[in-house]
C-alpha cells in the first residue's frame, strides 16, 4: 500500500468514526440514517465484490441473500410477539429478538442457500450464471410473497430492533456504530482472505480458469466456498437493514435490488477493498439528493452511471487512487 492510499484510508476511517458528531455540528442529524444505510449496503456490495470482483462471478441474485437474512429477523420477531412456535412445529422455540441468536441464524440460512444454489449455478458460466442466479432470487421473492402468515406481499413490521445485551440498538447512534463495526470486521476478514492462499486461487480462477486447472486446482470448491461466505455476509446485511427500518417485505428481494448492489460494485470499483463502499455511498446519496429536485431522478442518474462504467473502468476508486492496488 502506498502512502497516499494509507492517508486516504485513514481519513476515510476518521470521517466514518466522527460522522455522528460532524452531523451534530452541521445540524443535519437526519442524515445519520442515510449514512447507516450506506454502511449496510456497503456490506452487501462488498460481499458481492468478493465473488464478482475477485472471483469473476457475475451474480444478479444477491438480494436473495439479503432477503433470507432479513426475513430470519422478521419471522423470529413475529413469533416472539405472537408467542407462537416457529414454523408451527417447533414447540419449544417461540421466536427470539436476541441479536446473538438471530443474526448468526440469518447468516447461516443465507450461507446454506448459497451452498445449495451455488452447487447448481456454479456449474455454469457467464450469461447462464447471471440468469440462474436471477432465477433463484426470483424464486425466493415469490416464496416470501406467498407466505400469508408473514404478511405476504405486505411484509412484517417490527415493534423494535433486536436486542443486544449491553447496547441499546434503538439508539440510532449506537446502531450506526454497530453497522460500522460489522462492516470494518468484514472488510478486514476479506482482506485476509484475498491475500491468503485461498484468495490467490479465487483470483486465479477469474484470470485464467484453464491454466488454474492445468496447475492442479479444481476451481469449483473455491468458488462455492466464496459464494457461501459472500451469501452469509449479505444475509447479515439484510438482517441489519431490516433492523434499521424495523420492517421487512419481499421488496427487499426484488431483482432491481440485486441490480442496485451490482451497480454499486461497478460504480465504486470491483476487485478493490473499499470501492464497493464508495459506490454504495455515491449511489445512495445521489438517489436521495436528486429525488429532492425531481421525481425523474433516474434520468440524471442513468447517464451518470453509463459514463462512469464507460470511462472509468476501475470505477470511482480507480479514478481516485492509483490503479496498482487493485487486486492486492
Amino acid at each position, binding site marked *: 500500500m502506498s502512502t497516499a492510499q494509507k492517508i486516504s484510508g485513514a481519513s476515510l476511517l476518521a470521517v466514518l468514526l466522527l460522522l455522528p458528531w460532524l452531523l451534530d455540528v452541521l445540524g443535519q442529524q437526519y442524515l445519520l440514517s442515510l449514512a447507516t444505510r450506506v454502511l449496510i449496503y456497503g456490506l452487501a456490495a462488498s460481499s458481492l465484490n468478493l465473488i464478482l470482483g475477485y472471483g469473476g462471478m457475475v451474480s444478479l441474485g444477491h438480494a436473495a441473500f439479503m432477503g433470507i437474512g432479513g426475513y430470519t429477523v422478521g419471522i423470529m420477531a413475529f413469533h416472539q410477539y405472537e408467542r407462537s412456535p416457529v414454523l408451527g412445529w417447533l414447540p419449544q422455540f417461540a421466536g427470539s429478538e436476541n441479536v446473538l441468536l438471530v443474526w448468526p441464524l440469518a447468516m447461516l440460512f443465507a450461507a446454506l442457500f448459497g451452498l445449495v444454489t451455488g452447487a447448481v449455478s456454479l456449474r455454469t458460466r457467464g450469461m447462464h450464471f447471471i440468469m440462474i442466479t436471477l432465477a433463484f432470487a426470483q424464486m425466493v421473492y415469490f416464496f416470501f410473497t406467498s407466505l400469508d402468515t408473514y404478511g405476504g406481499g405486505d411484509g412484517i413490521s417490527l415493534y423494535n430492533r433486536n436486542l443486544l445485551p449491553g447496547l441499546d440498538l434503538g439508539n440510532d447512534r449506537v446502531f450506526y456504530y454497530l453497522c460500522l463495526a460489522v462492516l470494518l470486521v468484514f472488510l478486514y476478514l476479506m482482506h*485476509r*482472505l484475498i*491475500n*491468503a*492462499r*485461498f*484468495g*490467490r*486461487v479465487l*483470483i*486465479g480462477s477469474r*484470470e*485464467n480458469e*484453464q*491454466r488454474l*486447472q*492445468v*496447475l*492442479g*486446482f*479444481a476451481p469449483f*470448491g*473455491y468458488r462455492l*466456498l466464496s459464494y457461501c461466505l459472500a451469501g452469509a455476509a449479505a444475509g447479515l446485511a439484510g438482517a441489519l437493514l431490516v433492523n434499521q427500518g424495523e420492517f421487512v417485505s419481499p421488496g427487499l428481494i426484488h431483482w432491481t435490488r440485486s441490480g442496485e448492489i451490482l451497480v454499486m460494485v461497478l460504480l465504486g470499483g470491483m476487485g478493490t477493498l473499499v470501492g464497493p463502499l464508495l459506490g454504495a455511498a455515491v449511489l445512495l446519496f445521489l438517489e436521495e439528493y436528486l429525488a429532492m429536485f425531481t421525481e425523474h431522478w433516474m434520468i440524471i442518474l442513468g447517464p451518470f452511471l453509463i459514463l462512469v462504467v464507460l470511462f472509468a473502468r476501475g470505477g470511482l476508486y480507480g479514478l481516485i487512487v492509483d490503479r496498482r492496488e*487493485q*487486486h492486492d
Partner: protein
Amino acid sequence: MTEPVFRLDGVEKSFGGLRVCDAVNLDLIPGELHALIGPNGAGKTTLLNLITGLLPVDNGSLYFKDTDITGKTCHERARLGMARSFQITSLFPRFTVRQSIELAVQATRGSSYRLWKRADSEPGLTYPARKVMARIGLADRAETVAENLSHGEQRLLEMGMALATGPELLLLDEPMAGLGPGSSQNLAELIASLKGGVTIMLVEHDMQAVFALADRITVLIEGRVSVTGSPEEIRNNPAVQEAYLGTPC
C-alpha cells in the same frame, strides 16, 4: 527396459469426421527428452490436450507411472505430477511474476483452503518460488505484472509456472514459438539444464533445437505415429524426409 513414466495405448480422437489421433501408442522413458514433431495439423497439440486431460479420449488408455488416468480430470492429473506449458501463452494477466510462480508452487504443496495467513509470508511458498524465478532468469522482474512482460519473458514465465509445480513429467508445447534467436538460445539452454531430472515431452518446430536436445523423437503425421527413434534414425529415415523435412538436412 525401465518402466515408462507415461504410456499412451491406442489413443484415438476425432472431431466430427476428422480423425486427429489414430491409434497412437507411445512410451516415455524416465528422464528422457522426447520430442514430438510433425507438420502443421498433425495433431500434436491435440495429443498434449488428451494427455493433460483438457480433452477426453474417444478410445484407448493413458497410464502415468502405471496408474490408469484415462478417466481422471485435468487437475487430478496435474496433482499426480504432470505439468505443461501452452503454445499460446496462457498466464494470469494481472498477477505479478512472483504471485504467478507462488500460485503454481501452492498447487502441489499442501491445501489451498487457507483463509487467513498471507500467502506472501509463507516461506513454504516464497522460498521455492524465488528459486524458480532465479532459474528462469526472471528474479529481477518479480514484481512486474504478467501482462506487462515482453513476449520472451512471458514464455519464460509460462515455463516457470510449469516447473514450479515440481513435475515428474513436463509437457512443453512449442516453448520457443515467436522468440528471437537470442531468447530461443536461452530457453534451449534452460531446457537442456532440466534434462535428466524430469521427463520432458517437447513439441517444437525449431528443428535445430529439437535435434540438439532430444534423446528420442516421434514423428506424427495426420494423427498417426509415423516413426519413433533417435535423432540419427529420424534424420536418416526416408519416409520422414519425404513427408516432413523435405530435403535432407
